[in-house]
C-alpha cells in the first residue's frame, strides 16, 4: 500500500472514528439489518486495497456530450464554482473545504443503524471524488467509474457539496470489476436541488455495497434513482436527514434480476426532523430464476416534524417459482399531524392482463415485456427529466427484451 | 334571530382578510339568499357561523337570540339550533348512518335538557323522513356519506336537517352537483320544513335554486361585503347580467 501523507484534520478524525468503531455492531446473520442478506458482500473484503487510477475516472455528459474532464483536478468549464477533485487530494489538503464535511454524516449514520462497512471505508479511503458546486449546472454531470480488471477490492469515498440555491444532476455509471465498498456523503444547502441517478448496478458480477448519507437543508430537493440489472450481490444503504422545513425527496429503485443466486438489497432510512417535508419511496423488483430482492425502507418522524407526508411503495413481480422478495417497510412516528403510508405487494404476472394482450394478438414475450415495463413505470416516473427518463426507459426495455424472453 | 354586525374575518394561516365588514340581520321565518361570484367569501361566512377552525374574527359581533354566538363551541351552536348543510359533506368510514344520526340527535336533546328518544321512536322518525326524501334503506345502512353520489350526499344533509329540527339553517351551495330531479326533491324537503319560527340562509352561486326555494331577501356579496340587497327579482337580474355590475360596487366601497 502506498503511503499517503494525509492532513492533520483527517488524521485526527480518523483516530476519533477508529476509537469508537468497536461499538458498532458487526455484520452478521443475526443482525436485524442483515437478516437474510447475502453476506458475500462482506466476506470478500480485505483491508489492503489497491487503487482505481483516477485518471481513468472520466466524466462525460451522456446526453449532451460536450463535457470532458480528466486528471486529478477537474474544472468543469472554466469556473472555480464547480470543482471536482480527487478524494485523496482532499484528505491530504490541510485547508480543503472537505474538512467540515468529511466523515460527519458517516458518524451520524451509525446512530440508528450500525454500518460497520461504512466505518471501514472512512478509515481507509482509496479513491473517489469530491464535488463542490456553488453554481448551478444545467447539464447532467456523468461520472463513469472504470476500474482496471486487475484491481482487487476497493474502497471508494465520495463527497458532494451543493451550496444554497444550486441545482445539479449527477449520473454515475460503470461497473465495479472488483469487490467494492463505497461511501458518498452528500450535503445540500437551502433551496438546493440534486438529482442523483445511480446506474452502476448493471450486470455486476462482483459484490458491492454502496452507502449514501445525505444532509438536507430547508426547501432543498433530493431525488435518487437506482437501477440494478442482474447484480450478483449488491447492497445499498441510503440515509437521509431532512433537517429544515419544506424539503422534498424521492427515492426510486428498479431491480431487474433473472440470474440464479443474484441479489439486490436496498436499505433506506429517511429521518424527518423538520415540519412540512415530503418523502416518497418507490421500489420495483422484477425477479426470475432463484434470485432475491430485499427492500428495507424506514420512515422516521421526529416529534417536531409535524405535517410530514411520507409514502413508500415496495412491489415485486415474481416471474417464476423460486424467486424471493423480502420486504420490511417500517414506520416510526412521533408526531401526530402526519400522513404516512406504505404499501407492498408481491405477485406474479397478472394472468388477465396477459390474456387480454394475447387476445389482441400481441406475442407472448412482447406481452410480458409490456407488462414488465408497465410495472416499473411508477418508479421511472419519479425521474423528473424527461430526456433522462426516456433514455433510461429505452435502455431498460432493450435490456428486458434480451434477458426476459421465454 | 341572527344579527351580524360589521364582521371581519381573516384566515388563520395567512394574513388575508376574506370578510371585510359584513352586516346582516335575519328574523324568524325569513329566507335570505346570499349570492356572489366565486371567492367572494360566501362559504367562509357559513364556516364562521358554524364555528370551523382556521378563521380569525378580527372585528364585529354575531348575536344569536341576543347572545354572542362566536363564544360558543361548535356542538353548542348545533344544540342552539344552527345547522349547516355542507357544500361537500364529509365521508366517515366505519360510522353507520343510523348510529351517527341517533348520537347527534340525542346529544342535542341532552344538551337542551330534553329526554333522549328511544330506539323505536327514533327509527320511525328517520324512516318517515327518509321516505319523503326518497332515500333508500340501503343508503341508510351505509357509513355516513360513504359511497354516496353527490346528490345522495345532499339529500342526506336535508334528512339530517329534518331530523335535528334546527331553527336556523345554512344551505351552503346545496344546489351544486344536483340534477333537476334531485334539486326538486331537496327543495321539497326544505319547503316542507319552512315555518314562521325558522330562518334560512341560502348560499348559492346560481339563481336556479331560488326558483324552488323562494327567498324573502337576496343579498349580493362581493369581495367580503354585501353590496346590494333586494328581493327575489334581484336574483333574476343576476341571472341575466351576471355579477359584473356588482363587481364595480365592491370596488367603490373600498
Amino acid at each position: 500500500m502506498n503511503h499517503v501523507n494525509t492532513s492533520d484534520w483527517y488524521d485526527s478524525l480518523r483516530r476519533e472514528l477508529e476509537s469508537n468503531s468497536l461499538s458498532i455492531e458487526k455484520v452478521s446473520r443475526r443482525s436485524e439489518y442483515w437478516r437474510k442478506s447475502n453476506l458475500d458482500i462482506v466476506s470478500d473484503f480485505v483491508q489492503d486495497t489497491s487503487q482505481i487510477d483516477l485518471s481513468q475516472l472520466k466524466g462525460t455528459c451522456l446526453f449532451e456530450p460536450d463535457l470532458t474532464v480528466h486528471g486529478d483536478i477537474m474544472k468543469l468549464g472554466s469556473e472555480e464554482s464547480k470543482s471536482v477533485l480527487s478524494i485523496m487530494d482532499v484528505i491530504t489538503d490541510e485547508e480543503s473545504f472537505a474538512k467540515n464535511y468529511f466523515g460527519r454524516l458517516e458518524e451520524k449514520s451509525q446512530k440508528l443503524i450500525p454500518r460497520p462497512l461504512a466505518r471501514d471505508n472512512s478509515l481507509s479511503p482509496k479513491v473517489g471524488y469530491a464535488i463542490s458546486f456553488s453554481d448551478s449546472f444545467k447539464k447532467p454531470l456523468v461520472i463513469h467509474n472504470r476500474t482496471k480488471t486487475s484491481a482487487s477490492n476497493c474502497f471508494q469515498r465520495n463527497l458532494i457539496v451543493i451550496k444554497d440555491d444550486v441545482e445539479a444532476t449527477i449520473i454515475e455509471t460503470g461497473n465495479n470489476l472488483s469487490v467494492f465498498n463505497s461511501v458518498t456523503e452528500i450535503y445540500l444547502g437551502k433551496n438546493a436541488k440534486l438529482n442523483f441517478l445511480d446506474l452502476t448496478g448493471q450486470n455486476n458480477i462482483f459484490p458491492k455495497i454502496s452507502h449514501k448519507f445525505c444532509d438536507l437543508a430547508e426547501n432543498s430537493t433530493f431525488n435518487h434513482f437506482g437501477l440494478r440489472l442482474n447484480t450478483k450481490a449488491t447492497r445499498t444503504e441510503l440515509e437521509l436527514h431532512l433537517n429544515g422545513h419544506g424539503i422534498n425527496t424521492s427515492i426510486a429503485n428498479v431491480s431487474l434480476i433473472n440470474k440464479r443466486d443474484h441479489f439486490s438489497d436496498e436499505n433506506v432510512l429517511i429521518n424527518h426532523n423538520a415540519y412540512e417535508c415530503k418523502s416518497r419511496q418507490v421500489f420495483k423488483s422484477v425477479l426470475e430464476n432463484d434470485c432475491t430482492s430485499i427492500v428495507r425502507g424506514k420512515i422516521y418522524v421526529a416529534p417536531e416534524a409535524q405535517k410530514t407526508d411520507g409514502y413508500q411503495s415496495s412491489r415485486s413481480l415474481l416471474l417464476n417459482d423460486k424467486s424471493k422478495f423480502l420486504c420490511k417497510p417500517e414506520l416510526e412516528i412521533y408526531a401526530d399531524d402526519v400522513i404516512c403510508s406504505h404499501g407492498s405487494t408481491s405477485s406474479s404476472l397478472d394472468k388477465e392482463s396477459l390474456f387480454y394482450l394475447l387476445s389482441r394478438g400481441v406475442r407472448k414475450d412482447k406481452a410480458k415485456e409490456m407488462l414488465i415495463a408497465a410495472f416499473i413505470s411508477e418508479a421511472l416516473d419519479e425521474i423528473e427529466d424527461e430526456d433522462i427518463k426516456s433514455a433510461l426507459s429505452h435502455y431498460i426495455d432493450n435490456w428486458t427484451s434480451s434477458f426476459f424472453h421465454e | 334571530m341572527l344579527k351580524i354586525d360589521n364582521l371581519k374575518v381573516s384566515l388563520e394561516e395567512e394574513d388575508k382578510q376574506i370578510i371585510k365588514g359584513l352586516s346582516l340581520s335575519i328574523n324568524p321565518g325569513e329566507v335570505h339568499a346570499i349570492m356572489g361570484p366565486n371567492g367572494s367569501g360566501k362559504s367562509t361566512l357559513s364556516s364562521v357561523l358554524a364555528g370551523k377552525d382556521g378563521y380569525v374574527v378580527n372585528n364585529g359581533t354575531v348575536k344569536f337570540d341576543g347572545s354572542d354566538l362566536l363564544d360558543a363551541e361548535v356542538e353548542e351552536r348545533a344544540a342552539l339550533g344552527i345547522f349547516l348543510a355542507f357544500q361537500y359533506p364529509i365521508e366517515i368510514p366505519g360510522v353507520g348512518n343510523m348510529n351517527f344520526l341517533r348520537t347527534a340527535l340525542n346529544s342535542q336533546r341532552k344538551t337542551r335538557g330534553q329526554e333522549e328518544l328511544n330506539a323505536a321512536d327514533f327509527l320511525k322518525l328517520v324512516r318517515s323522513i327518509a321516505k319523503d326524501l326518497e332515500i333508500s334503506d340501503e343508503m341508510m345502512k351505509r357509513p355516513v356519506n360513504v359511497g354516496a353520489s353527490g346528490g345522495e350526499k345532499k339529500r342526506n344533509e336535508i334528512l339530517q336537517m329534518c331530523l335535528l329540527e334546527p331553527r336556523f339553517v345554512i344551505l351552503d351551495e346545496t344546489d351544486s352537483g344536483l340534477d333537476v330531479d334531485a334539486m326538486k326533491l331537496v327543495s321539497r324537503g326544505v319547503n316542507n320544513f319552512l315555518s314562521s319560527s325558522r330562518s334560512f340562509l341560502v348560499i348559492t352561486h346560481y339563481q336556479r335554486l331560488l326558483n324552488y326555494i323562494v327567498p324573502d331577501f337576496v343579498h349580493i356579496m362581493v369581495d367580503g361585503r354585501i353590496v346590494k340587497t333586494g328581493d327575489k327579482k334581484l336574483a333574476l337580474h343576476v341571472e341575466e347580467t351576471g355579477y359584473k355590475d356588482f363587481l364595480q360596487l365592491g370596488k367603490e366601497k373600498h
Partner: protein
Amino acid sequence: MTDNYQVRDVIDKETLSTVRSVGGKYKYGFSTDIETEYAPLGLNEDIVKLISKKNDEPEWMLDWRLKAYNRWKKLKQPDWALLKIPEIDFQDQYYYARPANMKEKPKSLDEVDPKLLETYSKLGIPLTEQKKLAGVIEENPEEMSENRKVAVDAVFDSVSVGTTFKEELKSAGVIFCSISEAIKEYPDLVKKYLGSVVPISDNFFACLNAAVFSDGSFVYIPEGVRCPMELSTYFRINAENTGQFERTLIIADNSSYVSYLEGCTAPQRDESQLHAAVVELVILDDAEIKYSTVQNWFPGDENGVGGIYNFVTKRADCRGRNSKVMWTQVETGSAITWKYPSCILKGDNSSGEFYSIAITNNMQQADTGTKMIHLGKNTNSRIVSKGISAGKAQNTYRGLVQIGGKSQYSRNFTQCDSLLIGNKCGAHTVPYIDINNSSARAEHEATTSKVDEDQLFYCMQRGIGEEDAVALIVNGFCKEVLQALPMEFAMEAQKLVAISLEGSVG
C-alpha cells in the same frame, strides 16, 4: 331495514353513556379481600416442585416443568421490541397464590366461596348457569331470543375457581375444564399436545410459563362436534406482587368448531405485576377455532405507576387440511403489552385471520401484531390491525408474513392502520414480508394519520361533543375488527374503546 344495525346503534349509545358515567376511571380496579396462600417469594427448582405438588401433578409433568426451568435460566429476556421495559426482578415475585379456602377444590359451584362469586359478578361474569355474560343488552330482547349460553372457566390468581355448564358440554362430548384438572383426568391428550405448538424453549416468557404455570383452561372438541355454546375463560389477578402464568390448550379435532372468549382484569395497584401466558391451539382437518380476547388488565395510572406487564405467547397450529383459525383481540389494558398471536398454516387450504385493536393511552406501551407462517399449499391469511395511540403512549404493530417456497398459490392481505391522538404519543409499524415463491400473492397496506379534522367538525356541527365525536370516529376506525368479535364481546369492546381514550382529547 334489517334489525342488524339497530342493535349496533344501541350499543353505540351505550358506549357513549358509559363514557360519561365512568369518567375515565379503570372500572375493575377494586380488589377482593380474601385470605390468600402464597408460595415463598422468588423462583427456584423448589418453587417449581411446589407448584407441581399443589396441583397434584404426575411425575412426567414435573419433569417437563423442570426441563423448562433449567432451559429458562439460560435464556435472556428479549429486547427487540420497541418497548422500554423496566428491569424485572424475577426473584421478587410470587409464582403461586390461591385463595386459602380453595385448598380443597370445590366440587361444584355451590361450594365456591361467596366472596369469589361476588368478585366475578362485580366484574359482570356471573358464575351461574342461568345467566348470560354481562354486556348483553336487554333493550332489544327479540335479538337475544336465541338465548345464547356461555360457559365460563374463571381463573383467580393461580387457580381455576370453577367452570360452568360442564355437564351440558360433556353430553356433547366437549371437554372444558381447568388445565390442572386435564393433566390429571386426560393425561394422554395433554401429553400429546402440550408444548407441541409452543415448545418449552420457544422464547423467554413462554419458557418461564412452562416452568411455573399454575392453571388455565383446557378444551377438547371431538371429531365432528360443533361446540353447543361459546366457551370463555375469565382471568383475574388479585393478589399483590404475584405473577399470573396461565396456560391454555385447545384442540379442535377433525371437522369440529369452537368459539372461545377470553377476558382479563386486575386491581389497581401501585406495583407492576407480571403476566406471562401461553395459549396453544391445535386445529385438525376441516376444524375451526375462533379465539377472541378483550384484554383489560390494569393499565397503570396516568403517570405510568403500576399496571400489568403482559408478555403473552399465543399460537395456532393449523395442522389439518382446510383448518381455520381466527384471532380477534382488543388490547386496551396493561402497562406493557408484548403479544403476537400467530398462525402456522401447515395444512393445505388452511387459513388464518388476525383482527386486532390495540389502544394505548397515558404512559402505556404496546408492541403487538402477528405472524402468518404459510407452509401448506393454497393457504390464506388476513391481517387487520388498528392501532390507536394517545397521551404519551407508544404503540407498535409488528408482524411477519412468510410464504414458504413450497406454499404455492397462497395469499395474504394485510391492512394496518394507526391513529394518533395528541402530539406526545408514537405509532410505529414494523412489518416483515418474506415471499419465497411466485405463485404467492401478498398485499400489504399501512397508514398513519390523526383523527380527521373535517370528520370531527362534521360530527360536532351536528351537536356531538368533542370527546364523544372522537369515540364515535375511533369506533368507526375499528369497525372491521369489532364486527369480528362475538356479540357479547363486541359490546364490551366498544365501551372499552371509548373509556380507554378518556382524557385524551383537549
